[in-house]
């Protein structure tokens, strides 16, 4: 295996090994941003009324 192939494989391994951490941090940031923008309130508003579309009426 060439040096370049080895280094590419190592890079891929690094992403596969640590990608979850980057995702987790990014996800938490998105959740904080969403909460700050009042998204749970919008979800609550919709989820506490009968969704006519879900039933097949709306």
């Amino acid at each position, binding site marked *: 295996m060439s040096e370049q192939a080895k280094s590419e494989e190592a890079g891929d391994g690094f*992403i*596969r090994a640590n*990608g*979850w*951490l980057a*995702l*987790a941090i*990014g*996800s*938490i*940031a*998105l*959740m*904080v*941003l*969403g*909460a700050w*923008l*009042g*998204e*749970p*309130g*919008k*979800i*609550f508003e*919709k*989820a*506490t009324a*009968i*969704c*006519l*579309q*879900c*039933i*097949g*009426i*709306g």
Partner: protein
Amino acid sequence: MSERRTLAQAVSTVLTNGYIKGFVTGNIYTGPLKHVCVPTLNCYSCPGALFACPVGAAQVILAGGGGFDPTAPQTIWTKLSGILSGTPVFVIGFLTLLAAFVGRASCGWACPFGLVQDLVYRIPVPFKKRGGGPNILYYLKYLMLLVMVVLMPLLVVDRFGFSEPFFCKLVCPAGTLEGGVLLPLLQPDLRGMLGRLFAWKTFLLLTFLALMTIFKRPFCNWACPLGAWLGPFNQVSLYRLKIDRERCCNCGLCTRACPSGLDVENELDSADCIRCLECVNVCPRTAILVKGPGFRKTRSDAVRPGPAEERTDPRAAPDSARPGHLP
């Protein structure tokens, strides 16, 4: 394992639909828990639903027109905040956080509609298939996510700039089963409002129910937008599956056990894997391992059967010596 997973799915179904009063009165739960989504497809119009559905919630945010006001002074900040408030960042963050740890495990262990599919598949029919159906259909769920959940709520708008949750309205059989069937039964007023759309959704639900008797999890594999979002994270999640090629004897037990109908040896970290771990538990050679904190990474401490033992009894290794085996 199968029984244990069924139990976990049943417990999750009961916990997420634990508003008993709703099943009696026909009035849905309106308490504070509905601020929160569950990582499964569970209609928030089910009389017992205690939490919000992430797919429905995402569409509602996208369909709401956001906070973008074309008449307001257009600074970068107003544009950005307008776009952000019309994007379901909280839902995306929540689902991605879960997927970063366990990939699509919520589909395998917690989804009420997944439980329905697993149970219906047990009904004996003469033309049952072992797999999950034609491969091309597996891509349909990505189209469903892009078109029905994202593009249509964004682009098909009324004159006030508002749209609808089109996946819920036109497709979602979980909504029909949990909300569409139960609520009109409990609320006579709603029965008079049922029309062509309800007939279409009922037809779709019955079609999926019929397909569930033949194929393994047809809705998850072909049409679930939630699975389409969570699936690709299987490749990078903290807990993953790993196969020891040297140890694998190609017996095919794992493929037969897979509820997603995958060719497990070749599709171990596939986006269609629901992380049910059936393959790990049926493997007679302990060739499939769970990789992640809390699970042993190597089998150096495992009792490895000798060549003669392997030929005569592939289950020679005791459970205690099976790394990756659930405690």
